């Protein structure tokens, strides 16, 4: 796939990502903070799980895709794969940071330490809230990646003629 094709493909998928992120995010926040009952063991600190786990999963998925993209880049020398991989990496780092931050803030009130002791285990109280927050984070991250990759194509393709055909960049 050429960078130009990737640019237009990303434009086509972007609105769906933002809408999905907004809708599932709104429902997810309501489920997480208002309708989910207080946990019997961990109290309201359990509500940190609704940002911690989605951030963790999205970060893990992002790093998985970076690895896959790097392999694809090596094997096929595909420019679009290289751009996409570079676009995913910052999101992976950001969600990793959110996961570490919220993980520490979750562990402290529950286990008394900023990092859970090995014997603590992980009482999983999943449900719609968790699923919706994950979907929301994932859609937001996908939107961010698509948006970022479009900027990268613009930056990379500054000298190429196809850029002249984009409405957004025609000189005024």
């Amino acid at each position, binding site marked *: 796939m050429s960078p130009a094709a990737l640019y237009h493909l990303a434009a086509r998928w972007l609105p769906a990502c933002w809408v999905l992120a907004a809708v599932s995010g709104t429902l997810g926040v309501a489920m997480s903070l208002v309708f*989910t009952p207080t946990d019997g063991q961990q109290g309201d600190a359990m509500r940190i799980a609704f940002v*911690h786990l989605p951030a963790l999963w999205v970060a893990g998925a992002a790093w998985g895709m970076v690895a896959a993209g790097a392999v694809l880049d090596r094997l096929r020398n595909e420019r679009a794969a290289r751009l996409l991989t570079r676009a995913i990496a910052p999101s992976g780092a950001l969600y990793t940071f959110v996961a570490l*931050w*919220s993980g520490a803030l979750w562990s402290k*009130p529950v286990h008394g330490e900023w990092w859970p002791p090995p014997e603590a285990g992980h009482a999983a109280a999943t449900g719609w809230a968790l699923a919706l927050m994950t979907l929301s984070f994932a859609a937001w991250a996908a939107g961010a990646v698509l948006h970022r990759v479009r900027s990268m194509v*613009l930056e990379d393709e500054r000298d190429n003629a196809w850029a002249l055909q984009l409405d*957004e960049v025609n000189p005024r």
Partner: protein
Amino acid sequence: MNWNSLADFAEMGGDAMYVWGSWAMAAAALLWEAAVLLQRRHIALDELRQHLRETAAWQEVDDAR
């Protein structure tokens, strides 16, 4: 419904600092990402426009020769 009052909700069963600290950082990270993305696209488009304007200007100089 889980909460009796707004104060009850804000207090988060005594874990307000941890719960809101996590949620606020997550929200801040997502919004910061959006701001950086918009700014980056804006700069990329601006530079591209500038580049096209300069090349167009040079083209006119070339044509005049």
